């Protein structure tokens, strides 16, 4: 198929950016969205132009590196990561707008590449269980109810791609933060640091300049791992409890 792409080009963080139109031809339905961009980039390189910069790595939907807003939707029309979005979901002759994640906390590095290190700092502020190497008791010392383990897992599935922030009209990182809070706070191992964790992580999240949550639900709709809005409710409850005591 042949497509018109309008891609956000921006040479650096402080440079102005804009949409540039490109024609790509002979795109196979079997291609992933990123392979389609690879095809474009091969042409651009041979022309001596700068290829479109975008983050990507595992290309199987687990590393969380890739992510772009396609026709106004984070990761595009399917609920998956951009690397797992295939061109069969588009039609010949389509015009596709491709933009980077947009958030004050995710400054653009180049083209579609943004700096998501704010997420790392949120994790560093409390998104862990303090268990220095060698200090652990036997793995069976504390049984964990299957329900709690499953719930923790479902929230630990977050890949940190940032689609929640990109989709939220307020650029809020509540779903990301909440997923980690739920993962660690529902486990008995995470209980001792439970209250401090949520307080610190919310403080770090606010300090990074993310917006607040207005419960629009856009984040959960965009999340490629299906993390639900419930997580935010749990974060709120944990936060308010922690604040009271």
């Amino acid at each position: 198929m042949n497509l018109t792409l309008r891609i956000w080009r921006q040479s650096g963080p402080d440079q102005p950016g804009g949409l540039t139109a490109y024609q790509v031809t002979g795109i196979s339905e079997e291609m992933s969205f990123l392979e389609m961009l690879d095809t474009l980039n091969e042409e651009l390189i041979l022309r001596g132009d700068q290829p479109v910069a975008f983050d990507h790595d595992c290309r199987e939907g687990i590393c969380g590196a890739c992510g772009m807003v396609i026709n106004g939707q984070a990761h595009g029309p399917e609920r998956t990561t951009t690397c797992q979005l295939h061109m069969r979901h588009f039609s010949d002759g389509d015009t596709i707008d491709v933009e980077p994640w947009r958030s004050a906390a995710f400054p653009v590095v180049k083209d579609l590449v943004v700096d998501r290190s704010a997420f790392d700092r949120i994790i560093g502020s409390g998104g862990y269980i303090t268990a220095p190497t060698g200090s652990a008791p036997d793995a069976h010392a504390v049984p964990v109810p299957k329900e709690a383990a499953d719930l923790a897992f479902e929230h630990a599935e977050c890949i940190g791609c940032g689609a929640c922030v990109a989709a939220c009209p307020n650029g809020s990182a509540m779903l990301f933060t909440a997923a980690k809070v739920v993962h660690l706070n529902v486990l008995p191992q995470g209980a001792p640091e439970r209250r401090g964790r949520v307080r610190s992580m919310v403080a770090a999240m606010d300090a990074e300049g993310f917006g607040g949550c207005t419960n629009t639900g856009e984040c959960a709709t965009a999340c490629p791992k299906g993390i639900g809005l419930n997580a935010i409710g749990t974060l709120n409850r944990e936060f308010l409890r922690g604040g009271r005591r």
Partner: protein
Amino acid sequence: MALTTHPPRAPLWRSTVGKKAAMAVSGLVLLAYLVAHMLGNLKIFFGAGELNGYAAWLRTIGRPFLGHEWFLWMARTVLLAAVLVHGTAAYQLSRRDLAARPTGYRHTRARASYATRTMRWGGVILGLFIVWHILDLTTLTVNSRAEQGHPYQNVVASFHTWYSGWIYCLAMLALGLHIRHGFWSAAQTLGLNSQHGNPRRDRVLKLAANALALLLTAGFLSVPIAVMTGAVK
């Protein structure tokens, strides 16, 4: 080596989540008031005596422990505080939210539900309406044919002015939308709906939000409509 990376406790109000909780609590206070207010309004359908008597009683609540209108002023203080907290938090959060997305998407598309998207402007409309509403039916400043102590007649007089009736009706529609998203949102903000493994609770809350919004809007709207159609004279 003990290593603490947790910062000292900060006041709740300083964080976005704390501000949202303050908004939720103040919103619920206002909502409770609205329910009482709406029920009181319905007395208009029982005639001038009923409504005026009810209005007079409101001024005597708590007697003899409380003086004349003391309860009313206490309620007004609480309401004013709730409105201020709600509005200030909304203002501060909105500024923050707008700053968090300095560059918008070129490709825009319809996002969340209408009620969700109109919370901010709906809130502003409701704020302006409250001012108008007080000037119209409490201080009677803009209600030229009104007189103190006769709420029934004042209401009828007000809604006989065409624009006053329409302002009221539009505001009540905005109120309905505001409550529809606001009530569920408050529950989420206070973490009341997130019983994991119990998705029913969330559904019940959403249903309750819709029902509350519908009942309050219908109740409030019934008065101006009755006046404008001549059912209440």
